[in-house]
């Protein structure tokens, strides 16, 4: 879509076109049509966080998926009153896509480590899109499935090459 006002000024793009550009390059949306992607870009909202702000909280179903647009955030697991930092997510990461499709309690907390902005999609908005284009969830589930399979292959490789017994119990997640 040619943007009448924005062609000369890249910083002055509407949030909608910026979102659309990001989604076009995302594996989760690789199967969906442009019309669907536009709706996604249209219905998303942005949220900003200061360092230390929780983006989502462990044990809560916040019904959202997140794309980190800028900044960084750490994934934290709270167990027996202790915080374990699992890893840090940088810009361009997706989190919580499954939450769009089904009630799902987040198993970890995500805490901003710098000034962070996320694009947020809600389950409710996703449901509206699925109402219009019923094959959307299926296409996204396919992408998720592939991602799980890829992750599993990586684990299997690690298990074979390093005989890392610690991960034995984790194997088989792609068979759910």
């Amino acid at each position, binding site marked *: *879509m040619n*943007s*009448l*006002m*924005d062609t000369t*000024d890249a910083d*002055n*793009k*509407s*949030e*909608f076109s910026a*979102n659309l550009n990001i989604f076009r390059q995302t594996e989760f949306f690789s199967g969906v049509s442009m*019309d669907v992607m*536009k*709706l996604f870009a*249209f*219905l998303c*909202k*942005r*949220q*900003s*966080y*200061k360092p230390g*702000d*929780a983006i989502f*909280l462990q*044990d*809560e*179903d*916040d*019904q959202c998926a997140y794309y980190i647009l800028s900044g960084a955030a750490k994934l934290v697991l709270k167990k027996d009153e202790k915080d374990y930092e699992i890893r840090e997510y940088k810009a361009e990461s997706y989190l919580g896509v499954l939450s769009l499709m089904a*009630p799902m309690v987040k198993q970890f907390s995500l805490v901003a480590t710098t000034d962070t*902005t996320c694009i947020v999609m809600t*389950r*409710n*908005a996703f449901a*509206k899109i699925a*109402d*219009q284009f019923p094959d959307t969830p299926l296409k996204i589930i396919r992408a998720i499935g592939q991602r799980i399979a890829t992750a599993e292959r990586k684990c299997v490789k690690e298990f074979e090459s390093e005989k890392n017994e610690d991960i034995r*119990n984790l194997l088989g997640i792609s068979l759910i």
Partner: protein
Amino acid sequence: MKTKTEKKFIPVVNRTLSSWIMDGNLKLQILLVVIILITVAIRVVPLEMQQRIVNEAINLRKIDLLVLYCGIYLLAVVAASLLKLIINLIQTRISEKVTAEMRKQLYHHILNIPLDFFRTTPPGTVVNSLLNELNIPGNYVGMAIAVPLINVVTLLAFAGYLIVLNPLLGVVSFALYPIMLYIIPMLQRRVNRDNKKRLNASRTLSSKIVESVSGIHEVQANGAFEIENNKFDRIVENLMGIRIKWTLYKYAIKIISNFFVNLGPFLIFIIGGYLAINGRLGLGALVAFLSAQEKLYDPWKELIEFYQVYQDGSINYYKTMGYFDVPIDTVLAAKDRAPYELEGSVHVDHVTLETTDGIRLLDNVSLDVAPGEQLALVGFSGSGKSSLALCIAQLYRYTSGHATLGGKEISELTKADITQNMGLVSQSPFIFEGTIRENLMYSYTALYGEICTLEGECAPELDGLVQVLQQSGLFVDVLRFGLNTILQVDEEEIVPVIIDMRKTFQQDYGEAIAEWVEFFDEKQFLSYASIAENIIFGAPVTDDFKNDRLMENQFFLNFLDDADLTRPLLTLGKEIAYQTVDILKNITLDRMFFEQTPIKPEEFDEYQEIVRVIKNKNLHQINQKQTRALLDLALRFSPGKHRIAALSEFMIHLILEGRFMFKERIKQKNDGAVSFFRNDQYIHSQTIFNNILFGIVKTTNPAAQEKINQFMIALLIGEDFLERMIEIGMNFNVGTKGNNLSGGQRQKLAIARTFLKSPAVMILDEATSALDNNSQKRIQSVLSRQWKGKSTLIAVVHRLDIVKDYDKIAFLKAGKIVEMGTYDELMAKKGYFYELAYGHN
């Protein structure tokens, strides 16, 4: 074991179509018959007058007779027309009354059909049945007496008159009708048959089209054009053949009908002519015969049409009623007693719930809950915990065993008994269009009647409403709705209070929130306000500066031109219209899709048309109406809210420049038309929240937003304005299906409405699943602290960390209770419950 208290009551779905004809319409139908008989009598008069005009007046050259007969003729025609109008009115009245009655009765029936039915019935089917399918049967009922009676009697009257006039010719005139009576239904059957074939073939064709469009990749990739073309061509040709036959039969009926009708005069001419020449028939009689032939055609046509309506009507009626012919297993209310007031004990004894396919959802389940006790049902999904709760709530019918509520068998209780003693909150509760208050009162009103909605003596007090809002946790949400209200003129009395609160708020919290809020500062652009609001930067005093009137305000339009704003705004409007139409062009419009664009759902078609027309035009080529529409759009655009377009720095600068110029102009030429934003004045276009802030929240940081809310609540408490705000908030409209509420808010509202009713037994079926942790824990603590001992609670629970306080926990697996006891007992047992609580790692 059902009580046989009702007298012979035939459910609407088992009524015959003909039973509607007299039901409740007896007087109208009798009146109709009387009017019809008069009409028919009057219809014969013109025939007689024709004869007399020719035989007496013309033959004897008597002007006075001519005038007299012509007068009578005219009178008869006018009277017949008037009576026909009255007949039609009565007929319509009967039709509509019966259709409405069928709809009402069927709707009442449908609401009582057991839940199972709706799992396989799409809402569309119900809608269609109630809206469309009953129209033709209704029409039939309206016609059922009038049409056959008037037409048959007319035919007979004509026949009688003609036979009296001349027996031979009379018989000849009607000789053809028996033949038609035989041929036309025969043809009609063929039409019906081919019509069915045509429908089937059309369906095949459309699924073929759907198939090739969805598989177009494969077709093009394989170059399989010929294969697909051949398939398609064959179906089209088949359809063509069927359509030709169908159309031919339809025409055949018309042609044969016409042919016979036209054959009539031929017979009259040849036989009547012969008789007249021989002097055995007067010329007047011949004219009467000829004109009767013509007049016979109308009743005949109407009879044939009636025959078709009857056929279609019967098919529709019995199909529709048959579809909903599901036995209803509960009685609404007992006629001979008031609903029981039962104590809240629940006793379940060897209850089994088996589906028609023989799947046991519950298998021999037994348990006891004493009044005021709290029982949690846990287990994996599909274990039967919800089914058990719904059986106790009488929404499912257990197939064997016993379940009692306060000692009475649940399956034998009426709906009124259940409503009186039980409250159910389901996992995805349904919220109806209306205000929070109306929804909060839903269960209460259903129980105590509609008189108790607002002012009646039995209405709950505001304190009671506030209390259940607090218990359910909806209080803060309602407060928020109240704060987000744009005041109506009739609530003016709180304006000074709010301005006072604004001052306090600025003193107490002004600094703390400064970085998160865009204050109404003359030098600052408000990204969360519309461009019009940014330019005017005040509240309109005269109507012509109201947002929806700006496009008719020449002063304002001239100003836009002079401030060099018209062109850039038009460009912006065009961009917004283009983008919105592009994104939303192929979808069913839903309110949610319009949150990020200034176009309203009801305007979408209009803007779609504008976009189509101006697509390849430049701004100077579009007409005034389109210009205004685009300008209007741009003026309603608020960059913080509508993410569909962006404003450049240059544009923002231009708008701010414009703001000052506008103020100057108003002062010069139209002083007093706008009251500019001032710290000591209420801004009517803004919400109460923004009025207190004297600004608009700009941060998208949830933590910061939460902080501002907390400050606001602290302020309201300090100013003793909390309850008033709740009252305002309760007028918030929840939207269709409660769409303006989040999933969590809907659940909280459903819990609050059950609390308000305060039933002996509460059943919560995963009623807090959409709530965040804190809210769940809060409600749980309310349940165990404030409701224990007061209402019996049976809760299906999916999270185990909140079941500690329950008196009993039943663990279900594959429809059976495999463990039951207190939390500590079950944990000590290290069985299923322990496993589920700690996972298998």
